[in-house]
């Protein structure tokens, strides 16, 4: 196949591209320029798309013997990922920008351009597996549970999966690093990237405060209705959050208090004991199916955050979304995050959480 390898300049995508070439594919490498004003050097494990990353990608492509180009995706990234991130937070939801990037950039804008230009598939260094079942291409969890990225790929449609290659899905990170070393890829020991690539200092709240007009508002005790403090803007808070509340008057009982609700309209942050966070019903919209839709009432597993567990549940399809009922209570689910549904290791699809609650009968 003629394949387009997206090289970030990191070790995973380099090894993925090398494996694709070794498997006999005709590999062309691209580095995606996502930032309008790239920094020249990388600092620590944060950020991405520096000139140094681009050069690392170039050298990795050289080692593989693949021609290398840089594709400018900065305008698409700004609109579909960064602006979406800001607008989701400004209405009180907690978006996952990596998921949006996979949905709108890597497996949409880049894949479409690749197909138009005559490529058969896109190769990335994501840890996930693609298998072929009765309905065609299926997306599965990676064998390395600590690296599994099927959650952030849960937005992929069956069509997109069929035009993708994830050569690292059967390997552990340790194996991939060793292989990079063996292949002479210079970035073998480069640290993994973490956090949000376009917020290089990792201070999401501070970054958001510069993007969104925020005003101080009240922190309310959800149980008593009393004002217990002030905050600098409700948008920066996420349900389930405990740090950064800066409450002046601790509770006598010494019980830890969490953000249990965020109301951007009234600029109010509600706090309370963790028990108030317990839910067992998740409503979600904007489904993306990785294959056939689940059957109504089907037993599934669901994951609601990037490094979360797989929880037994059951799914019902409504006219405009899904209702996922968990077998057990779950603590702290933020709307805006994705609920990715699994059948064993296979991704069924994903939906964006619009509401979570305790079922009346629970």
């Amino acid at each position, binding site marked *: 196949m003629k394949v387009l390898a997206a090289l970030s300049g990191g070790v995973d995508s380099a090894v993925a591209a090398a494996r694709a070439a070794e498997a006999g594919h005709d590999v*062309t490498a691209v*580095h995606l*320029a996502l930032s*309008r004003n*790239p920094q020249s050097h990388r600092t620590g494990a944060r950020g991405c798309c520096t*000139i140094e990353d*681009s050069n690392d990608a*170039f050298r990795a492509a050289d080692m593989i013997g693949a*021609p290398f*180009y*840089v*594709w*400018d*995706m*900065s*305008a*698409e990234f*700004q609109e579909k990922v960064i602006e979406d991130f800001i607008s989701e937070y400004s209405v009180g939801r907690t978006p996952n920008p990596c998921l949006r990037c996979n949905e709108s950039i890597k497996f949409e*804008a880049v894949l*479409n*351009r690749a197909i*138009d*230009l*005559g490529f058969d598939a896109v190769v990335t260094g994501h840890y996930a597996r693609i298998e072929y079942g009765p309905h065609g291409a299926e997306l599965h969890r990676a064998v390395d549970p600590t690296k599994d990225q099927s959650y952030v790929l849960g937005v992929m449609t069956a069509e997109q999966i069929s035009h993708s290659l994830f050569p690292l899905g059967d390997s552990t990170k340790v194996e991939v690093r060793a292989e990079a070393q063996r292949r002479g890829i210079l970035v073998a020991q480069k640290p993994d990237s973490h956090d949000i690539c376009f917020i290089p200092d990792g201070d999401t709240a501070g970054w958001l405060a510069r993007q969104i007009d925020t005003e101080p508002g009240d922190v309310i005790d959800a149980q008593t209705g009393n004002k217990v403090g002030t905050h600098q803007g409700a948008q920066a808070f996420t349900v389930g959050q405990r740090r950064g509340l800066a409450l002046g008057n601790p509770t006598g009982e010494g019980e830890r208090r969490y953000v249990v609700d965020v109301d951007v309209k009234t600029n109010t942050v509600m706090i309370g004991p963790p028990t108030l966070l317990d839910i067992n019903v998740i409503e979600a919209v904007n489904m993306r199916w990785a294959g056939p839709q689940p059957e109504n009432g089907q037993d599934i597993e669901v994951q609601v955050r990037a490094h979360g567990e797989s929880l037994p549940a059951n799914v019902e399809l409504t006219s405009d979304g899904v209702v996922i009922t968990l077998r057990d209570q779950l603590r702290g689910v933020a709307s805006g995050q994705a609920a990715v549904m699994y059948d064993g290791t296979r991704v069924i699809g994903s939906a964006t959480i619009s509401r979570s609650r305790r079922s009346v009968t629970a």
Partner: protein
Amino acid sequence: MAYLDHAATTPMFPEAIAAMTQLLAEPGNPSSLHASGRVARRHVEEAREIVARVLGCRPAEVVFTSGGTEANNIALKGIAWSEREQNPAKKRLVIGSTEHHAVLDPTHWLHDSNDFDVTWIRVDHVGRVTPQALRDALGSDPSDVALVSVMMANNEVGTTNDIAALTAVTREFGIRFHTDAVQAPAWLDVNFAELGVCAMTVSAHKVGGPHGVGALIVSRDCKITPLVHGGGQERDIRSGTLDAPAIVAFAAALDVVSHRRTNEVKRVSELRDSLVEHVFTIAPDAIYNGDPEGRLANNAHFTFPGCLGDSLLMLLDAQGVECSVGSACSAGVPQPSHVLLAMGETADHARSTLRFSLGYSSQESDVAELVAALPDALERGRRAGMPRGAA
């Protein structure tokens, strides 16, 4: 493989390679006072005389540099500083709007960090600076102008400027004039003495010489404040041990050019015209940019509406056809061409360009390979359309 990017760099002539390799094993530093030093010095001075003969200047006016970019930096900064030092009122630079980044960036730096004012000279729709445009840029009182810089031939669209007609304008006011002639010597009969400029930039690797060497031709009355200090080897304008093998190879290349130019201009311009004809047959909607007549013999520059230039470049590259989008890259990302924008083109058109540039080694087979690869590249490139890129 078809190499159609000679404007970026062109292969060294065998004569230049022979001259260079012969000297690489010689020990002498041209500044040393012993016999080996004198031999090295003799090679450099003979080379200087050849360069002077080919470019129509005196040997003493040749200041060897590490290339075109350094020569442009020396000219822009060195003349601007020197002029302002002599007369503090001289704090304005008048610069062509389609100059190479090696002129644009020093200009921006002089403006941002050195308090010079800048007036950009407009170009017409083919990318040419007219004497009237220069007059307009100078304005009613050009007494504050330290330096005018206008390129001899544009590296992207190939349009040539009549430098002598432009210096006729500045001579009235006694204003210093620099021209970046990096793209010119292989295709135009460059005669420094007749141009009326005080400084002119040339580069070896555009004329069949090696990378890393060039020259600033500086008239004897032109004062230049040096950028680099440390030995003053080249007229105190430029310091650093002279790279004798590279300088000798540069001269050897210019010598070849001076003997072959008349024939090559005729042969290559015919080859270029046939390339242009073929491109229009394949893509009737293509736009041939620059002046159809007054342009470098080796340049063919097109806009392919609805196709991103870097998509086409990648697709042609995969077929072994090497060309350029023409414009500068930032971190590997081609930027919309400032040359086309200055010529009044839209941003989309400025991102949909390809430059094919021929050289003395170009053959009909190169054009044939392009003609074979272009239809499929255009079809796929059109299908992918115009991703938005940087706004």
